[in-house]
């Protein structure tokens, strides 16, 4: 995390928005509405505890354990909870599986809903006007933006997750990984492959 460093006014090295946020925080603390340690804790939780490594564990387990994969299909939230994940913005999960015939992509066109417990907070591109506007009408064009080649024979399914249900893409297991351990497999799984803008 870095601070804004574009200089303006005399000597201030904070941007307008940085100043506005600092003022708002001190005001909320003064009013007894916010505890700054709570903010520290929230930032730390989202910077260090949650992230795509969690989702990757779910994917790797699904690849090696057909019974787990079936439980993911039947009740994804419960199957994900088996690995210790769940909570805020991942309360109601659905896992959608890529196959040689089907490629899934996830978006929230109305805001930027995203499965925080499994992927952390979303990247800027996921929240961008470009992605939110384009992926429902031109998913194959978005895949080109990510340099992903997809055959015309493959069906693209776009999940516009505008309710409280959150989606995780289960990417296809790459060829030649039969001898890998679960940990090694998890290390192969990228964030974008679990959103659907990458293949492995």
């Amino acid at each position, binding site marked *: *995390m*870095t*601070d804004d460093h574009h200089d303006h006014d005399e000597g201030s090295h904070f941007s307008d928005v940085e100043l506005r*946020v*600092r003022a*708002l*925080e001190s*005001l*909320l603390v003064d*009013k*007894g*509405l*916010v*505890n700054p340690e*709570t*903010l*520290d*804790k*929230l*930032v730390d*939780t*989202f*910077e260090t505890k*949650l992230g795509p490594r969690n989702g990757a564990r779910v994917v790797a387990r699904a690849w090696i354990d057909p019974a787990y994969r079936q439980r993911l299909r039947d009740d994804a939230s419960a199957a994900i909870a088996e690995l210790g994940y*769940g*909570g805020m913005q*991942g*309360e*109601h999960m*659905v896992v959608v599986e890529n196959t040689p015939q089907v490629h899934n992509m996830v*978006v929230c*066109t*109305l*805001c*930027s809903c995203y499965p925080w417990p499994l992927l952390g*907070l979303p*990247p*800027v591109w996921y929240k*961008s*006007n*470009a992605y*939110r*506007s*384009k992926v*429902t*009408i031109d998913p194959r064009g978005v895949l080109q*933006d*990510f340099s992903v080649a997809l055959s*015309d024979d493959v*069906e*693209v*399914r*776009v999940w*516009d*997750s*505008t*309710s*409280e*249900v959150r989606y995780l893409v289960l990417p296809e297991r790459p060829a030649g990984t039969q001898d890998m351990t679960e940990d090694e497999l998890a290390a192969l799984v990228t964030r*974008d492959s679990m959103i659907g803008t990458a293949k492995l």
Partner: protein
Amino acid sequence: MNGVHDMGGMHGFGPVEPERDEPVFHHRWEARTFAMRQACGALGRWNIDMSRHANERIPPEQYLPASYYERWLAGLEMLLLEQGLLTSTELASGKRAGPAPAGLAPFPPEKVEPAVRKGRNYRVDLDVPAGFAVGAGVVTRNINPIGATRLPGYARGKRGTVIRDHGVFIFPDANAAGEGEKPQHLYSVRFTARELWGPGATAKDCVYLDLWEDYLERA
């Protein structure tokens, strides 16, 4: 509301540009804004649907060029003012002018991790009859409410197929308006790309939306 936040299908925003090795937050103010929004939300003065709708009500000329966390900041300021937690004088001056409404206690740091791990339950344990079975053909209503809705503009008046019944959920259109939860079934509905975008779309591609009972009619 038919706002610029309802972006699905718009043209002209250019290519999607991923960033390599992106940090969780790019600036300290983004992290503080995110955390303040969560901490203030925990005061219980608004629900998640009111919170989303605040962002939707940011004026379009301000919304479009703003970054994600600038929108969160503008929406938070709007909610704090509307709920009487801050005054516009306080917001402009940065100085406290009076006490906060009685009975509000800041969310304690030790409760952060349990709250994040637990989340909330948006499913409602009520025996509400389902109007549609899996496999049913449906058509979305052509509604244009001024308030919040989770039925995107591009999917109004369109024919689809119910592929899953998620169960009974809080209805955001009512919840955002402070009219209660109005629990009802939420369905996953499949639309062909051609139904949504016309004959130029790829024949086999589909878009799936989670839609509440009130958005749907029998096809």
